[in-house]
């Protein structure tokens, strides 16, 4: 039981962070960013290169991941998403652009970082073992704490800074925000960069536990979609809840349903569909975000 709860907290904190960036971008620009998973992978590879290959301290490598992704995100927003959103008749068209970017990043990751699974040396050694009822390696605990801290920092940023207020205004009502003197173009770019940066940060954190390979991008995006959908699209707290709920669903589902074997995930997915059919806007989303 303790183990299941611990697994749930650990998974949930990871998932919440992945979902945060995606939902932020969605809230600001109504873009379902198919390339989110690829950005997460790039974050992992950057940390791998700096920390694993060149021996730069882990924290610095993590910062490099964030910086790289923030720049990448800003460029993608400014030169691709912004003009396409302006020019398209239906805003869903950005999905094609996002998918194209996902393909492109996949191709670039393959050419630059290669096809192999990569991993870095452990940041902390040892395993916390409470009487074999609760087993958690120290590095996982550390990563989990770091993830929670980042989520808290992100919420603080959104609540108490000028940038955060502007972004929230933008997410609530684009036109109204513009009328109130918010530089919409600038803050869209900042928001997108921030979302991408979050992806990079999780990638960098998780590379110490799971390693990284170019195949993780697509599936990660899909998982992130699910979390966002559980919590409610475009709502920050929704993404956090969605991540935690999916984390616990997996931890509990895998433990309770393990006797059913192959159909564990099938049951998780079906319950997700039933949940959404009952509550079409997720836990706390706007009715049709």
């Amino acid at each position, binding site marked *: 039981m303790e183990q299941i709860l611990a697994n749930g907290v650990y998974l949930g904190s990871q998932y919440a962070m992945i979902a945060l960036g995606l939902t932020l971008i969605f809230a600001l620009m109504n873009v379902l960013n198919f390339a989110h998973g690829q950005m997460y992978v790039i974050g992992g590879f950057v940390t791998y290169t700096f920390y694993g290959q060149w021996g730069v301290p882990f924290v610095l490598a993590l910062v490099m991941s964030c910086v790289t992704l923030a720049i990448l995100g800003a460029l993608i927003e400014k030169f691709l998403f912004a003009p396409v959103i302006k020019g398209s*008749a239906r805003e869903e*068209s950005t999905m*094609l652009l996002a*998918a*194209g*970017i996902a393909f492109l990043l996949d*191709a670039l990751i393959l050419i630059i970082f290669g096809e192999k699974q990569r991993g870095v040396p452990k940041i902390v050694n040892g395993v916390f073992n409470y009487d074999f009822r609760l087993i958690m390696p120290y590095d996982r605990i550390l990563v989990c704490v770091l993830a929670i801290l980042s989520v808290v920092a992100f919420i603080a940023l959104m609540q108490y800074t000028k940038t955060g207020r502007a972004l929230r205004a933008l997410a609530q009502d684009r036109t109204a925000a513009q009328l109130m003197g918010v530089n919409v173009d600038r803050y869209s770019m900042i928001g997108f960069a921030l979302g991408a940066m979050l992806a990079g940060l999780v990638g960098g954190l998780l590379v110490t536990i799971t390693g990284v390979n170019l195949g993780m991008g*697509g599936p990660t995006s899909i998982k992130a979609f699910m979390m966002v959908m559980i919590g409610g699209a475009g709502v920050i707290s929704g993404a956090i809840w969605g991540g935690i709920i999916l984390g616990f669903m997996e931890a509990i589902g895998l433990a309770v349903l393990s006797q059913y074997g192959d159909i564990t*995930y099938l049951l998780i997915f079906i319950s997700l569909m039933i949940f959404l059919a009952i509550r079409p806007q997720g836990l706390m989303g706007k009715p049709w975000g």
Partner: protein
Amino acid sequence: MGFSARQLIGVGLFLFAIFVGVPLIIGATGRWDFYFTLTSVALLAIASAGVWLTFYIGRINIGQGAFALIGAYVSAILVVKAGWSFWVSLPAAGLFAALIAVLIGLPILRLRGVYFAMITLVLTQVVTLTALALPITNGAKGISSIPLPSGVSLFGIPLLPDFAAMGNTKLAFYYTACILMIATYAALYRLVNSRLGHLCRSMQQNEELASSIGVNIAYIRIVIFAISSFFGGIGGAMFGSIAQSVYPSSFQVADSVNFMLNCFLGGLGYVFGPMLGTLVLYFGWDLLFEFGKYQMLIYATILILIIRFLPNGLLSVRIGKGGGK
């Protein structure tokens, strides 16, 4: 319905091109491999037409892979285990997919926007996992060695040839796929220009408003989703017959996403958009074959450039020229 002379000529030219032109060109250049690629394009275009139709009622559908997989399995099971003729199993596959769509559509069609998109995405995974778990689908082992479509004759007159007796099935599959594709798009065109089509357009703009003026939106949604999935089932079943095998991974999330992208690329405002989108996306990949390891890079770059400069789809070029035709 009145067609202008210009439209009729256009359709005539198109039919001539795919039934006579393409075989002539392939015969002259010797690129026999293009038959399969173009057959694929035709079949994927059928499934994409379904996705386009759900767009038409304002729903982003990332679940067509699920219905294509259902169609492929239904046809394969009927042919292999029940000994049906493929030609009977083909409509059965479409109808079964439509039936599933009605059952699933009842609860999920209330969802909109990204929620509908994501729930259909999950649906694709659910169907793949179900195929892995069920005994009738043969689980992970899939169904392989499916016989080729057999001949059909009525009162001794052969209506359809026996594919297994042919030396080269490529051309036969190509023609079959093209005929199915044309039937699909003719039906689509007819539907869009019917009363139902007008109702769909009103729903696409504002469901509440449409509902308030007496449109039975729940009914229309189900009908449209069922038709859409019927197309998916047909496309999938035909593919299973060409590959002579079906696996849980025959259609997966990536396929669902591609079907949707085909519609975006061709242009959501055009009935023939998904056909063009499929051609460009699928055929484009094959044409870039020569670039080896840079294939993906170039493919993605071209895709991004197209959407960057033609955000409303390829067919919007015509409007750009001043909306002549």
